[in-house]
């Protein structure tokens, strides 16, 4: 049941981060969205044995964390959800793939080990990228960016409203589940006899709430779209940011920067 309050505090934390001010926060949301997607695509597109080239990509999130002043530990806390799945899939690789791909002295490293590490890095990197997007961009700015990409207004409106009401619903449900657990000490979840009525009650209430919400929107002249206000103007800096990032990602993808650095230092 603790999950609800955890989720609540996570949402609040993200909101607080997105409301801060930094050079990254001020970049146009559309630029950030595109760069983030590109970054993830590039990261994921590295071949499975290319762990040394993939590692260059760490520089983007590291730079962004520092420039935006976002604490890294918040992001790593979220890894607990992604990593188990990625690990479960990746962990079998060392057992199945014995192709030798690297040799350090007398130790031969097999393809399975390398591909497992690569997979985990991909998981961590792409998580960090989308975390950074949402930690530096408020939800309404993101919706405005999606509108610019011609995402249907029904979807962006729904996204914005759902996001707004998740907080309310989590709060109501956690009050209800506290009330439940106070009268059912020692139970870990909701017992079968209450499955239907527990959520059903809430469901009925929320249907009524939806109706009232609609009234409230109509009474204030709603006709389809919202006015997004928290959108910083598209400035030269945003375009430069997008261009620089795009260039850097492609360099990292098509040139072996790690290799170059390595031969520079190791001769």
């Amino acid at each position, binding site marked *: 049941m603790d999950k609800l309050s955890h989720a609540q505090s996570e949402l*609040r934390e993200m*909101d607080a981060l997105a*409301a801060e001010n930094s050079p990254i926060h001020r970049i146009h949301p559309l630029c950030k969205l595109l760069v983030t997607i590109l970054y993830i695509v590039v990261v994921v597109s590295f071949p499975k044995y290319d762990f040394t080239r993939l590692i260059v990509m760490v520089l983007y999130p590291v730079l962004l964390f520092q420039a935006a002043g976002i604490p890294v530990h918040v992001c790593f806390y979220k890894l607990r959800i992604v990593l188990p799945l990625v690990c479960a899939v990746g962990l079998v690789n060392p057992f199945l793939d014995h192709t030798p791909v690297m040799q350090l002295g007398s130790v031969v490293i097999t393809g399975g080990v390398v591909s497992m590490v690569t997979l985990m890095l991909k998981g961590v990197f792409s998580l960090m990228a989308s975390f950074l997007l949402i930690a530096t961009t*408020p*939800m*309404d700015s993101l919706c405005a960016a999606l509108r610019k990409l011609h995402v249907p207004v029904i979807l962006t409106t729904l996204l*914005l*409203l759902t*996001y*707004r*009401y998740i*907080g*309310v619903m989590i709060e109501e449900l956690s009050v209800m589940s506290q009330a439940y657990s106070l009268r059912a000490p020692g139970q870990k979840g909701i017992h079968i006899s209450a499955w239907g009525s527990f959520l059903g009650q809430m469901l009925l209430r929320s249907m009524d*709430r939806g109706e*009232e*919400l609609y*009234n*409230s*929107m*109509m*009474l*204030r*002249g*709603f*006709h389809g779209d*919202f*006015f997004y*206000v*928290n959108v910083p103007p598209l400035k030269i800096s945003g375009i430069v940011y997008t261009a620089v990032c795009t260039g850097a990602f492609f360099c990292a993808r098509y040139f072996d920067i790690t290799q170059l650095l390595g031969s520079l230092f190791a001769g």
Partner: protein
Amino acid sequence: MNRMIKFDHVFFSYDREHYVVEDLSFSIGKGESVGLIGANGAGKSTIMKLLLGLLSGQGEILVEGIPVEKKNLPQIRRKLGFVLQDSDNQMFMPTVYEDMIFGPRNYGLSKEEADKKVDEVLGRLGLLELKHRYNHKISGGEKRMAAIATILAMEPDAILMDEPSTALDPVNRRTVINTINSLAQTKLIASHDLDMILDTCQRVILLAHGKIVADGDAKTILQDRALLEANRMELPFCLQGWHGGK
């Protein structure tokens, strides 16, 4: 007479069997503050919804002489501001500011005009620091005040309020009462908080089973213990004669 709101023999029922509002006639003048009281299910909310065109019944309802009909609704709703009982249902945008410009922008104000309006209203209510706060992070009292502010930003001619003082601590409740008293608009306030009604309204309409039982001076009706108790209410606390204190 300068009439803001007029109900003329209005009937309404959900199930066509028994009326929630039955043969209701009253009118409210410009600038009046009227308290709408009555037990649960007496028809207070229904009256508000009929007035706003959210429900439609039989009989005639006029707002500044304009009948409440489907084709007039945008015009009518422009004149009326409705403060909902649950502020969460009212404040659906992420921040207070976005919520406040929602109405004005929909009614055709430019961004600059809407901005000016928001600052003016928030300044008047002393809420400027709430402007960029998130709706799901402000306290219950702040939320109620912000909900009132979103309605005031639309500059309605009349304000309807559904239980504006519920679930507030005494200080917040007092702030809401003072704010209501500072408003020059016509006010129609539905509530069980008779002390608040006594503080904010000159006139009271007492409802029971969808009919008007009493309509008149607030002090007279709210001091009539027999009348109130016959209709499942009791005297406001301030008039009960407190014996425990000094």
